[in-house]
């Protein structure tokens, strides 16, 4: 948060209402508005809706998985389809739900936060969104192919994904390419916008943390999405064009696939959590009515997490057989990440300390994030310890870990962000009662869902199995019940969002929340279609 942000009054404040009307008649209506839009707010909305739909689709697949695992024995799907469900669930949640949701938030918020009229490259912005639905249509349609869709896990380890997969692999590769192109274009847009479009006076160290974390995330995306594209291309050529990147017979090495994949994969994990740090760093100060503690150290911590993410990849593959020296290196490097991550958690707690706290819905989600993400972080620290990782690796302990950081971490932060900025977008307060129901149902069910996974994992249940030994039966029943409850709880959110889109609810002030600070809270609510056409001056 910058010390003193003030807009150029000429533009938005005094004339806001007039400005709004002035542009309203330029907005095309109907389908073509959405197809052809280059407006960052429209595209942000499209991304968020797309992410939400994908969240429900991926969630439906999780329901299939949990229904199958409700009790031991083969229940409703065969093992092949089960593998396709875990694979596509992972791909959809990572590339279809979490990443587009963050891109949607970036589209809505980054220009408003830095005082820019729009994203730097509006037409590319339109493209990077509209190719995304096709990527997922291709992926989902592969499930209906003869023999089914990809069943080799979202990590598509060779040679399972090369010599031993069916032809849906080609569709999978094509769809990942499109997702990658979309993400790269989105990331380039964010970087260019932040570097070139800031309002006068909006120096780097005055940028809100959400902008900072997204800038770093975008650089990570630009660095690693091409590596993913390379990896899937090698899978494709190994399968269809006779190359031997991952085939020992031709001088290749299947373990090399894992090195390349995780060189992409670990930064990818931070791509899904750094923007969340930015969101929490915006919400906690607002409802503590106190400035964010340690702004500079937050920026440094984010940057160091991003840099460290490039040298820890092999902690995903300790069991592949590495020399002791390599195992030690990756263990120590991984443990180091907990230092900057710890700094962030401490800073949030210090921001709350001696503040003047209220607990509106965004703050409830933010606090849940801090606690549950930290639990995920601590189990991550345990996983870093190589000798013990041999026991944890590929068990439900890992599943518990990454769902704590991705569901109660990334997804909760996205929900917190939606509740925080939704009134600014619609101009109306959302249905608070429904929101509280959504929060409490989600919070309780998500823990019933994921906490027992720690126990079954430690007790020895491998991940990605369609059936399990009898000693895991009790916990799995609870996990499934938690899963169904969590899935249903999201329908409350759906109803709430539909109500908000219909502009139901009490009108809100420009500032919306008592303690909110930043450029986006100085423009009218709802945010006009065009904002900051004349840049504000940030003092």
């Amino acid at each position, binding site marked *: 948060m910058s010390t003193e942000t003030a807009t150029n009054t000429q533009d938005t404040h005094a004339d806001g209402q007039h400005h709004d009307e002035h542009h309203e008649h330029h907005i095309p209506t109907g389908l073509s508005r959405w197809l052809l839009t280059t407006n960052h707010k429209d595209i942000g909305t499209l991304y968020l809706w797309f992410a939400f739909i994908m969240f429900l689709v991926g969630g439906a697949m999780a329901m299939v998985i949990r229904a199958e695992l409700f009790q031991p024995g083969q229940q409703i799907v065969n093992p092949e389809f089960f593998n396709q469900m875990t694979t596509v669930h992972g791909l959809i949640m990572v590339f279809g739900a979490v990443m587009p949701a963050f891109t949607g938030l970036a589209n809505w918020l980054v220009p408003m936060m830095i005082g820019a009229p729009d994203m730097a490259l509006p037409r590319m912005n339109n493209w990077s969104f509209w190719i995304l639905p096709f990527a997922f249509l291709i992926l989902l349609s592969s499930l209906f192919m003869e023999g089914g869709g990809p069943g080799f896990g979202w990590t598509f380890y060779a040679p399972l994904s090369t010599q031993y997969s069916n032809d849906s692999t080609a569709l999978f590769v094509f769809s990942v390419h499109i997702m990658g192109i979309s993400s790269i274009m989105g990331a380039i847009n964010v970087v260019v916008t932040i570097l070139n479009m800031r309002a006068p006076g909006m*120096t*780097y160290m005055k940028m809100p943390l959400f902008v900072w974390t997204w800038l770093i995330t975008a650089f990570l995306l*630009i660095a690693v999405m*091409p590596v993913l594209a390379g990896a899937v291309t090698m899978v494709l050529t190994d399968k269809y064009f006779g190359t031997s990147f991952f085939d020992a017979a*031709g001088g290749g090495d299947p373990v090399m696939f894992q090195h390349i994949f995780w060189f992409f994969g670990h930064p990818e994990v931070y791509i899904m959590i750094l923007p969340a740090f930015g969101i929490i760093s915006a919400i906690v100060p607002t409802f503590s009515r106190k400035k964010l503690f340690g702004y500079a150290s937050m920026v440094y911590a984010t940057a160091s997490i991003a840099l460290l993410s490039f040298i820890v990849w092999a902690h995903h593959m300790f069991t592949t057989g590495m*020399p002791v020296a390599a195992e030690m290196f990756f263990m120590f490097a991984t443990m180091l990440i907990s230092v900057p991550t710890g700094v962030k958690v401490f800073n949030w707690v210090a921001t709350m300390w001696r503040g003047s706290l209220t607990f509106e819905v965004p703050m409830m989600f933010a606090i849940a994030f801090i606690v549950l993400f930290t639990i995920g972080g601590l189990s991550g620290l345990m996983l870093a310890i190589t000798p013990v990782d041999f026991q944890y690796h590929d068990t439900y302990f890992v599943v518990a870990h990454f769902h704590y950081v991705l569901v109660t971490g990334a997804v909760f932060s996205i929900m917190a962000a939606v509740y925080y900025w939704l009134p600014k977008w619609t101009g109306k307060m959302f249905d608070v009662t429904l929101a509280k129901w959504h929060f409490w149902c989600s919070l309780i069910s998500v823990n019933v869902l994921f906490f027992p996974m720690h126990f079954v994992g430690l007790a020895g249940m491998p991940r990605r199995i369609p059936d399990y030994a009898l000693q895991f039966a009790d916990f799995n029943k609870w996990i499934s019940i938690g899963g169904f409850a969590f899935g249903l709880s999201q329908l409350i959110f759906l109803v709430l969002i539909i109500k908000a889109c219909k502009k139901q609810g009490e009108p809100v002030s420009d500032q919306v929340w008592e303690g909110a600070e930043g450029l986006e809270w100085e423009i009218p609510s709802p945010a006009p279609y065009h904002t900051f056409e004349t840049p504000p001056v940030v003092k």
Partner: protein
Amino acid sequence: MTENNNTQHQQQGLEGSEATNSVNPSHKTREQIAAENMRTVKKLAFVVVGMLGFSFALVPLYDVFCDLTGINGKTSDQAAVYEAVEIDESRTIKVEFITRTHSGMPWEFTAQTAEVRVHPGEMSEVAFFVRNPTSRDIIAQAIPSVSPGTAALYVNKTECFCFQHQPLKAGDEALMPMKFYVDPQLPKDISVFTLQYTLYDISAKVQPAVDVAMTTANGE
């Protein structure tokens, strides 16, 4: 504009640029901003292409990395030249041989000696027996793997059947020799290591070359 250039330069160092206090001038025209944006896009597109290239460069880099660290236990696919190193008689290393045929490879494949004990620096020769019991000609490729992986760096093979494709006509058998010595630099904590060969049927992959290879095999 000067201040603006300053910003651009600082942007190069991404995370390093936090200290900047430069201010974007408020009077930039749309054209100026667009031109600036295009410059940045070009730089970023360059990074994207570079990283795509890097992902493929990872393939040879991985081999280099393996040669340095022994990460995957692969021995060199080039013949080593025996350097007259001093034989370290104070140490005896047990070298075990494991022979496997990959799924679907019908050859018989056995090591004549299951293990040898050697002093580091000493040349030894072992042989492997192969027989193609089928009614078709097959070309094989042997893939070596050493465990612990670090030991792979210290196995110097001056001659190995794994350096070439190995063709065998239907019903033929052969003895395939392998000469090697263990580098005396072998870390002290390694006293035993395993060398595995897996035979793959690569006839399908090298089909056009089969006839040539068979002719050569006959000549021997």
